């Protein structure tokens, strides 16, 4: 075969469907296997005449669909119930009915990919070049003529094949050479393809880089309206009110919830004579310290840090950004330091209640009893860090109550 002049095959043209189907049947019956018909539309009965076996495509589609179905359920279960569980309106983390729509859509999506790409792969498409494209008359194969091609590589192919094919009712028969050089895309087209492909790879490369490196700067926001919101922060001045303060004091004559006697030491942190309370106006015990620790972690630790030294993530990040975009950060006080240690409990209580410097007051969020608990916990924290016994310990009850 290789010694002969390169021959792709022999092409026969037919005018109508009937003669094509009849010819295809004869070609098959003569024993040829490497032959094909080329038609502008699918011709029924031709598969049977040519002996085309049913395609395995439906099985590919089924497999892809099952992957979509299983993958859809797994994705929803793993993301919402395992990797990042969070409760929404008391619903279970994973429930079959709620997971059906997405799994259903993914089944169809993957099965459709299977049908489309499976069809292309089985047909050997896309293909840049085919020897038949060089035959002028073959351009009507996609319009209004029908063709039968027997390949030269067919074991039954002989020099008499073209003549025999012509006798089957073909309107024309022509041998198709195998060109020495197959057609290739023009160079500019290849170049363009390379450029587009390289550019398309850029975003995934950038994403991959971002995923495995640490950012030194905050993300760039195109629209800054979240960074600079029109609002007043704690202890700022505001022209809106007569007293010039942005934070509003409680309106005269109102009583906060649970604050029935607003003049007591429990509510103000001051003795009747106006001096700061030096003792706790409620029973000091282990439970109160625990309560203080819990409240401290919720309300105070975000800025002052869990150890009270003012070294929280918020403070660190604020220091990193100091001076950027006009920020002026006042670091949170070190609650374990000398300055705070010198303050009587009543004054600590008042600071928590009303705020100080840039710190807002917390009387709206924390109940009086809990504010005392926090003040007590601060004392315990300080002593623990200084290696002393906690004020709640039985032996030191007296000292603590000082």
């Amino acid at each position, binding site marked *: 075969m290789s010694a002969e002049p390169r021959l792709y095959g022999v092409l026969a043209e037919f005018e109508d469907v009937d003669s094509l189907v009849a010819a295809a049947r004869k070609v098959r019956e003569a024993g040829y296997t490497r032959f094909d018909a080329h038609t*502008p539309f699918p011709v029924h009965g031709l598969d049977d005449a040519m002996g085309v076996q049913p395609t395995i495509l439906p099985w590919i*589609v089924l497999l892809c669909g099952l992957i979509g179905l299983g993958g859809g359920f797994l994705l929803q279960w793993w993301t919402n119930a395992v990797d990042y569980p969070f409760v929404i309106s008391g619903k279970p983390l994973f429930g079959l009915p709620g997971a059906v729509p997405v799994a259903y859509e993914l089944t*169809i999506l993957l099965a459709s990919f299977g*049908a489309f790409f499976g*069809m292309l792969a089985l047909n050997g498409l896309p293909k840049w070049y085919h020897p038949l494209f060089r035959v002028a008359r073959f351009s009507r194969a996609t319009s209004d003529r029908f063709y039968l091609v027997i390949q030269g590589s067919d074991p039954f192919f002989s020099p008499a094949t073209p003549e025999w094919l012509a006798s089957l009712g073909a309107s024309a028969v022509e041998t198709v050479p195998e060109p020495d050089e197959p057609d290739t895309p023009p160079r500019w087209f290849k170049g363009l393809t390379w450029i587009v492909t390289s550019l398309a790879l850029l975003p995934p490369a950038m994403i991959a880089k971002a995923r495995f490196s640490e950012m030194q700067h905050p993300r760039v926001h195109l629209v800054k309206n979240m960074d600079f919101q029109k609002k007043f922060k704690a202890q700022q001045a505001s022209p809106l009110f007569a007293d010039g303060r942005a934070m509003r004091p409680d309106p005269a004559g109102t009583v906060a919830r649970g604050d029935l006697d607003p003049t007591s030491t429990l509510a103000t942190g001051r003795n009747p004579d106006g001096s700061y309370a030096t003792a706790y106006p409620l029973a000091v015990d282990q439970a109160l310290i625990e309560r203080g620790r819990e409240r401290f972690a919720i309300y105070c630790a975000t800025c002052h840090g869990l150890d009270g030294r003012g070294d929280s993530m918020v403070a660190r990040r604020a220091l990193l950004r100091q001076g950027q975009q006009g920020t002026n950060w006042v670091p949170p006080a070190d609650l374990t330091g000398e300055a705070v240690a010198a303050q009587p409990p009543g004054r600590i209580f008042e600071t928590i209640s009303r705020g100080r410097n840039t710190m807002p007051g917390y009387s709206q969020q924390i109940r009086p009893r809990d504010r005392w608990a926090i003040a007590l916990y601060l004392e315990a924290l300080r002593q623990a860090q200084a290696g002393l016994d906690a004020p709640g310990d039985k032996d030191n009850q007296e000292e603590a109550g000082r």
Partner: protein
Amino acid sequence: MAEVAARELPESIKPPDLIQGGEDFTSITNTVARVAEYKPPKGWYIAFGIAVSVLGVLLAMLGYLFWKGVGIWGNNQPVAWGWPIVNFVFWVGIGHAGTLISAVLFLFRQQWRTSINRFAEAMTIFAVMCAGLFPAIHVGRPWLAYWLFPIPNQMRMWPNFRSPLLWDVFAVSTYATVSLLFWYMGMVPDLATLRDRATKKLPRLLYGVFALGWTGSNRAWHRFERAYLLLAALATPLVLSVHSVVSFDFAVAQLPGWHTTIFPPYFVAGAIFSGFAMVITLMVPARQFFGLKNLVTMRHLENMCKVIMATGMMVGYAYGVEFFIAWYSGNKYEGFVFINRALGNYAWAYWTMVTCNVLLPQVFWFRKMRRNLVVMFVIAAFVNVGMWFERFVITVTSTSRDFLPSSWHYFTPTLFDAVILLGSFGLFFTFFLLFCRFLPTVAMAEVKTVLPEAHPGHHHQPAEVER
């Protein structure tokens, strides 16, 4: 059975041939390919110029929206879903006819589809593009819209799969992808036709690239047909699911007027209704301009008018059932919402909807009206308007009168709402006119299969029903 019945039909009541005017394989190729090969009529340039200008306005508006934020719209509490969601449902609904005509009618062996399916599929793709635009800009920060997809991100968070809004993301993006595959795959043999007819280098190269080297090989056709059938079988449940999932956006919320089980079938019927109306709106002028009258015959248009009337009455039935259930449930909030819908502050919108969707299509009972191009074009335009108002009525009436009377509010759109809706038509028509100009607008290979001479031994027996 079918063959026997067809043979016994008296000549007088036999349906006319699907393709008329004595077209054969050659003339079909010429008729369709000519549209893409020669310069279009002057009207095309005018229409394209207008469409591109409107698209430009849309892009400018989107730029302003991204800069300024969604506050430029009329959306506010309690009507937090205003026109963007109305427009989204409107466009997604229109996008349903394409796949319905392609897939559902294909499975039911309705051969009249072959003349209009390519056209309707293209309409689907472009309508879904417009639909996808609106939720994306409605999220407020569209550059973060990728949070909707389960992509590992810097927050180590995943989307909430228990929300119908996320189901919607999957449904609409699957629908867009599968519709595109279905449309493109059906077009590959026709692109090969254009490739083989192309005389200039560049069109030959471009059509050649997109035709993927198709040779019309019968072994390839065998797999192609099987793939097409499978895609149709996959797309059919997909069409039904997509608008059902869109309706879940409303039906899963516990708001009177939204929280009803009729929503999924009601939305699907409405989608088919509006989609067919849009096909007529586009098809009537297009067949005139591009000389496709023998391929898209009066019979095709008449069939579509029948579908419009049938689905219009289904929608009307749903309107009625909603009122019945509001009364029958004994739920006074539900009852209030529906009385308010028909008689309250948006009664004008409600009755516009009923007139356009239920009353006007009734003229299609008359054969003369179904065959009158002007009448069907006007009615289809009214249906388009009516279906937009249906989504408006659903979205706005329920929220504007919510549980707390002190927060009741009359929704007023801003100029930006209106211009962005108008701009979405610019987007749609720009792509659609490009499609009409450069791609095969009629599925040539499929139309050829419904000609009698496409079947072996056709002179002995009537045309087979099978494709």
